[in-house]
């Protein structure tokens, strides 16, 4: 029972990441009709925003170490600590959550630049060439990151307060064996918040209404005198931001390295296809579903019966779904059905 609950949490947690990335991917696809293979790279860029911010905060100065008296010793002290003392230390400690505020404008700009600079020329091209172009783009982004940050994973710790584990079982009276890292719980609630925010944004704002109308009938909205192209550019930047903040918060879970994006890309594409191309609720549902399935398949009891199932479960589900229900779990009829 405890194991099942733990795996459920694990799955929700993984699913949160999948759902966030898949959400951005679907946004870009539903509005712009772009199959964006560079979306995983945007996720990775988000994670490296956290790394950069962390590095910026800890720019240090060599200071003579007073505690060692018998020879001259120097230690690196971050400027923030010198200027603000205790406050500085705690700012550095909270680097990862704070870097969200750093990542949002950066990702907005990157998304805007990509869409205006490159991707807008590919709306009228076939999906095959969109895939290939963004695939090339993903390689380029990945290599730039490798050039700047090196090939090794860079550990980016979560704040001290939440780096431990929570004994959830005690809080809910479910026994004492359900212990789960705090940061992962935060990630889960964070992803739910972001997903909710995106949906609310699309549902309750005028901007969102226009975008939804544009998804249904682009030409009509254009004829009503609304500059739909510009809204769609903003939506693309938004999808980049969603991927970016997902990456920022993911950095403490897995130390980011340059092929983090590629690892996630294939999985999220599968998630999007399972959920149904162009369906936002589908992407979120499929993300959580596949995350949970994957973590259950990784349980030892399951592995004993079906060895290797944890490695392929997602792809297996995708194959079955595509064959049985081609438009995906919640796909809209007629969208991309051939």
């Amino acid at each position, binding site marked *: 029972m405890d194991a099942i609950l733990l795996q459920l949490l694990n799955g929700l947690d993984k699913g949160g990441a999948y759902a966030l990335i898949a959400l951005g991917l679907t946004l870009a696809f539903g509005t712009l009709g772009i199959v964006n293979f560079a979306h995983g790279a945007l996720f990775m860029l988000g994670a490296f925003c956290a790394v950069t911010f962390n590095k910026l905060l800890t720019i240090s100065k060599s200071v003579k170490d007073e505690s060692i008296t018998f020879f001259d010793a120097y230690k690196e002290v971050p400027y923030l600590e010198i200027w603000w003392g205790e406050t500085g230390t705690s700012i550095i400690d909270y680097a990862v959550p704070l870097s969200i505020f750093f990542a949002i404008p950066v990702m907005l700009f990157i998304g805007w630049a990509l869409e205006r600079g490159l991707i807008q020329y590919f709306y009228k091209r076939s*999906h095959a*060439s969109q895939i290939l172009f963004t695939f*090339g*783009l993903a390689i380029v982004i990945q290599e730039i990151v490798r050039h700047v940050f090196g090939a090794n994973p860079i550990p980016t710790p979560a704040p001290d307060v939440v780096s431990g584990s929570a004994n959830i079982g005690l809080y809910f009276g479910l026994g004492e064996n359900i212990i789960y890292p705090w940061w992962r719980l935060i990630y889960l609630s964070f992803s739910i918040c972001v997903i909710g925010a995106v949906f609310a944004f699309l549902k309750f704002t005028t901007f969102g209404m226009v975008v939804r109308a544009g998804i249904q009938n682009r030409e009509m909205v254009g004829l009503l005198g609304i500059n739909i192209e510009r809204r769609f550019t903003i939506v693309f930047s938004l999808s980049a931001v969603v991927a970016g903040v997902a990456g920022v918060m993911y950095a403490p879970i897995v130390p980011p390295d340059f092929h983090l994006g590629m690892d996630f890309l294939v999985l999220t594409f599968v998630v999007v296809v399972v959920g149904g191309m162009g369906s936002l609720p589908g992407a979120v549902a499929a993300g959580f579903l596949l995350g949970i399935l994957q973590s259950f398949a990784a349980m030892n009891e399951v592995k004993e019966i079906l*060895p290797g199932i944890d490695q392929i479960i997602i792809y297996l589900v995708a194959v079955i779904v*595509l064959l049985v229900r081609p438009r995906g779990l919640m796909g809209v009829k007629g969208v*991309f059905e051939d």
Partner: protein
Amino acid sequence: MAIFSVVVLTMPLWMQPFGAAYPDILQKFVIFGVFAIGYNILFGLTGYLSFGHAAFLGVGSYTAVWSFKLLTMNIVPAIILSVVMSGIFAVAMGYVALRRSGIYFSILTLAFAQMCYNLAYSVLTPITNGETGLQLAKSDPRIIDRLFSEAGEGLPSTTLFGIETSGYSGFYISAVIMIIVFYISLKIFNSSFGLKLKAIKANQNRMRYLGFNTKPYLLSAFVISGMYAGLAGGLLAATDPLAGAERMQWTASGEVILMTILGGVGTLFGPLLGVIIIKYFENIFSAVNQLDLHSLYAIFPAWLENSLVAISSLFVGEGWHMTLGLLFMFVVAFLPGGVLEGLQLIYKKIKTRLIKNNKSTGTDTDTKQETGANHGE
């Protein structure tokens, strides 16, 4: 065809001035040539973008190495087995994946390839030897070889009835095989089968209305190209008996797509051209290091030299993938027909200009023939 064979077989001679006349890279040229020719049969003719062909390459390699381990060091059974094995895989994969088309087909093939890759790394380690890769060992049974001779000292090398298949002889064997498969693909392109495949690319619905069941054609194209990939994998193992799972990763499929597109999708020679361009520059670019760059820019003043080195080191050595990605973007964006199309465009421009010039002098037809002949050479 005869000219083509001569050109391929004399590669060691005319590649000399380019500094690529050693067997290692020549083998790569022809083996990946086989791979790209096969991929072109699927993507070029039917327009189905598969992201899973690297899996067949991997299957071919593994099968060939197992054949070396269990049966004999002769490459003939190894290659036949690897083609058959990848053919079986391709039938299974194609049967399922071809139920869908467009982007769904791409994702399905991608999913299959990732499944193979993940399995090769995890559960199938007894067969694939996981991360280390499958290698020959002294204790392998090699049943057929044992019938004729005792096990010698050290590791045996791969042979074709006594000829060692590494180095130049390996290149010639692979080259002959490539010429044969190129001939087959030429026949496919010109046959009514090839025409039907092209019709599927142009308009699949209309084909159906005309009363053709497109499925068998697509499936056979898929299986043929899968077998080509398996053959390439088998040849890779024959020239260097080692198989690793990284050959099956989906980025490897991306590379063969790039080769095909760079050269020219749907053309006969395009994929070969793409292979040669990519493998050649990969070889050169990834070998360059900082010191080479410094000596290259030595004529410039120091500050300019350093900044130039800093900029170009982005693109060479480890950064070769960056060049590849940029090339990918550039070709897809500006030259969707590949290098061959670019050459044709240039040729047409020159031709029209020549004709314009000649109209004033009046010897129109002569120059047409002349330029045509020049192009043929």
